[in-house]
């Protein structure tokens, strides 16, 4: 595995995204290495979610190229694309659970589509995933509208992990969770990364997550990556926003 650690699982080159006349991303470059947890921060409205959605192909880009697992997503045919999509899992900001399916059906949905396995194994996998994300198996037959915000996040993570992907995108996974739940969540992401060799692309505002879960941090500002590196690099940076973010009042409260 050692020789693979260095290669980039996501390679973003010079991408530009524009909505009408507003340029959200402007020639952005980013590499995510295999097996790392990348924390992605930036001011609200800077385009963090836009970048995530561009990488997974939900937002069209004006220019640039995106490679995931070494596959250029623009050049890929639909079969190659599907193969890539099967290897990643995505946790949307609002969960994006299918509202007319139960928790069980939500988690089983991708598995059922891609693998021919028995109903028994499907049901067991649901329980395993629910336990992994810290939920009781009893919630399996509830509908998303009957879940709390934190539970929706966890079920959405369970669905994102349903096929044991190699890469997961987490869009603000800990927002709306209580601090204990958020801590568990970070711990869970860490465990999964360790055990499954998962690569995690995490958009977050949670300083705790950045400190405890992330290997590397990338900062988005004015359409570009303004800094990337470890927590120590971030704190040493002279950029005013970074100064405020990592050395501000809230940050000091985290580091003590």
């Amino acid at each position, binding site marked *: 595995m050692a020789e693979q650690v260095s290669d980039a699982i996501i390679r973003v080159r010079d991408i530009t995204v524009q909505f009408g006349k507003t340029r959200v991303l402007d020639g952005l470059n980013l590499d995510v290495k295999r097996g790392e947890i990348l924390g992605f921060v930036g001011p609200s409205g800077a385009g963090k979610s836009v970048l995530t959605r561009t990488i997974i192909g939900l937002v069209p880009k004006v220019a640039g190229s995106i490679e995931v697992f070494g596959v250029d997503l623009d050049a890929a045919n639909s079969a190659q694309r599907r193969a890539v999509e099967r290897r990643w899992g995505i946790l949307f900001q609002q969960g994006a659970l299918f509202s007319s399916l139960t928790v069980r059906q939500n988690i089983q949905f991708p598995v059922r589509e891609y693998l021919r396995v028995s109903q028994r194994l499907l049901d067991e996998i649901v329980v395993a995933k629910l336990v992994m994300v810290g939920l009781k198996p009893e919630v399996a*037959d509830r509908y998303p509208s009957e879940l709390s915000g934190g539970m929706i996040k966890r079920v959405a993570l369970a669905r994102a992990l349903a096929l044991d992907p190699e890469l997961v995108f987490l869009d603000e996974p800990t927002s709306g969770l209580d601090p204990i739940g958020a801590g568990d969540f970070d711990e869970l992401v860490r465990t999964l990364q360790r055990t499954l060799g998962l690569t995690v692309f995490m958009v977050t505002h949670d300083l705790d997550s950045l400190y405890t879960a992330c290997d590397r941090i990338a900062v988005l500002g004015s359409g570009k990556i303004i800094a990337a590196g470890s927590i120590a690099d971030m704190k040493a940076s002279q950029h005013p926003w970074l100064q405020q973010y990592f050395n501000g009042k809230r940050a000091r409260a985290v580091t003590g």
Partner: protein
Amino acid sequence: MLATRNQLWLVNDRFDKAIGAYRGPDGQPAEGWADVNGDPTLERIAQGEGLALCAAGNWTARFAPALERIVSDAEKLRGSRTHFFIDVSQVASLDTFGAWLIERLRRSLSDASAEAKIAGLSANYSSLVDEVSRVGPAPTVDSTSLSLSGMLEQIGLTVVGIGGTIVSLVDMLGAVIAAAGNVLIHPRTFRLASTVHHLEQVCWRAVPIVVLITFLIGCIISQQGIFHFRQFGADIFVVDMLGVLVLREIGVLLVAIMVAGRSGSAYTAELGSMKMREEIDALRTMGFDPIEVLILPRMLALVLALPILAFLGAMAALYGGGLVAWLYGGVDPEAFLLRLRDAISIDHFIVGIVKAPVMAAVIGIVACVEGLAVQGSAESLGQHTTASVVKGIFFVIVMDGVFAIFFASIGM
């Protein structure tokens, strides 16, 4: 070689040291082991009283169907031995699917008389197996059985549901009237901008399609009338038929059905998605009455719109009918108008147009009740939007029948 491995099962705690013994000097797996990069395998090796199951290959989601077969086969060994060892040291990659299936195998092989152990876990994988070992039995799904009592229960529930629908319609009617009364007392609470906005949506924007459809229906009635009346030499009576039919019935009924499909469904979908996103709850907590803010302007817009649309529709139908009568039946416009003047009176027009606001109110009430009944799911939104249109059209036709009886009995 085999002897080394046999010892291994008995000395689990020395496992990590022992693993080197059956690997080649260069760290590559020694001969005889399954291809580590290939399909998953589970080799069975008898060891006196016990049995060793050696897992190898990729135990991952991609191979889940094959893994499940392998594990189901191995589960049949249950009870055949007193000791089972599941050796996972040769597994090339493991994820939750593989880990769970190994754990499942361990559980199904161990019972009162037999013992099963998992051996050879590396540090990374042991936390994964620990994770899945916390998994309890899957909760069973209760399936609804098809039985006579179940069907009777369904019928009963449907009847209760119909009763509930009528109650909620009356409830909504009362709430809307109360809100209207409140607005009359405090005219400043009236939402003019919202009403005008909805009036544009349901009236102004509906004009082209309503006029087009009623025009075509007028043409068709006229053409059919002329075609059949001609056999009796009664061509000119098509004007009587057209006038009475369009003004009394077709004009308003057709327009009401179109409005139920076009605006009733829109109201239900709008209110339903607002309900789903807790927007209606937000309004309520800010001290606003959703009936007054959301429903009254919509109802008022619909009640104003339908008579206007019904009038325009009737005119378009008469125009279309007259055009066909002239071009196809040879009844020139002057003769058509003369005949029309004799055939119809203002009563016919009034009978038609009086029904319009009532039908609008019925459509609006049904649409709003259905909109507020939407639950949290997208499926529920779809069901209630469908129900809104179906019930709206049903009640429009029922109301039309009631009006027909009423007007017949008062001689209009």
